[in-house]
């Protein structure tokens, strides 16, 4: 079972994301409402998958991109799904160039999580850790 961490300041978004990750067969091991808390939980829980909001209030001088880069540096094969209500190409390209697996724009629609599932399947299939739940949707 994939261990997942959700970093998003919206309890609403966290609830929806949690629902879909559980459907994918993930175990949501933690939820953070800021990048700084996300970093702490990442170091403590060592998830294999992280979903991260781009636009969150900066806490303790840690913003989303800094958090993202630090996590990827620490665990290069970490799967990070960036979730954002900012549909700007520049931000999208920045995160994808840095190694984000997917960039999902809020509000979520019926295709958002299907696209994520397909990308997760490819990512974990390549590393030989493909959970059956991801396939059996």
């Amino acid at each position: 079972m994939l261990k997942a961490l959700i970093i998003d300041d919206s309890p609403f978004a966290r609830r929806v994301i949690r629902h879909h990750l559980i459907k994918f067969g993930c175990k949501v091991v933690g939820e953070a409402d800021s990048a700084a808390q996300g970093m702490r939980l990442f170091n403590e829980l060592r998830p294999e998958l992280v979903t991260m909001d781009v636009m969150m209030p900066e806490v303790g001088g840690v913003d989303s991109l800094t958090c993202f880069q630090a996590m990827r540096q620490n665990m290069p094969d970490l799967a990070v799904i960036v979730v954002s209500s900012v549909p700007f190409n520049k931000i999208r390209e920045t995160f994808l160039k840095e190694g984000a697996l997917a960039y999902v724009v809020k509000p979520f629609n019926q295709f958002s999580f299907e696209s994520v599932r397909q990308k997760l399947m490819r990512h974990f299939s390549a590393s030989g850790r493909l959970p059956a739940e991801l396939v059996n949707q």
Partner: protein
Amino acid sequence: MIPPLYPGTSGLHEGRTAQTLDSETLAQVRNEGEELLRDLIELFLREAPERLELLAAAIAKGDGRIAERAAHTLKNSAAILGAVSMQTVAATAEIAARDGKLSEVAALLDDLRLKSEAVIAALIEERSRLDKPRAAE
């Protein structure tokens, strides 16, 4: 062709819900499961009044950043439940706050409160609808 995550809809409800909440969006959430819908309703009932108070306080203090965040959260929460009209006003308030035009945000506040109250009433109605089969047992 990507298969839809939310096959079918459960139809348009009559009454307040149909006017305030987009039936298709709400049906998508409902099709994901009653537990998710219940949780999102409870989150909205708790969060929306708090965020509106935060927005009003930020306007009074002249804090554009907090006003932008509050409007942003209201916009996203409304979007998830298909509260299109509220989402539109919150989005306008968010942009105005980002541009430092707090007088414009203040002018939108009453409308945003009214729209939020309508959404809350519709969600309470929706929650009662969910409770009905259980009460009949």
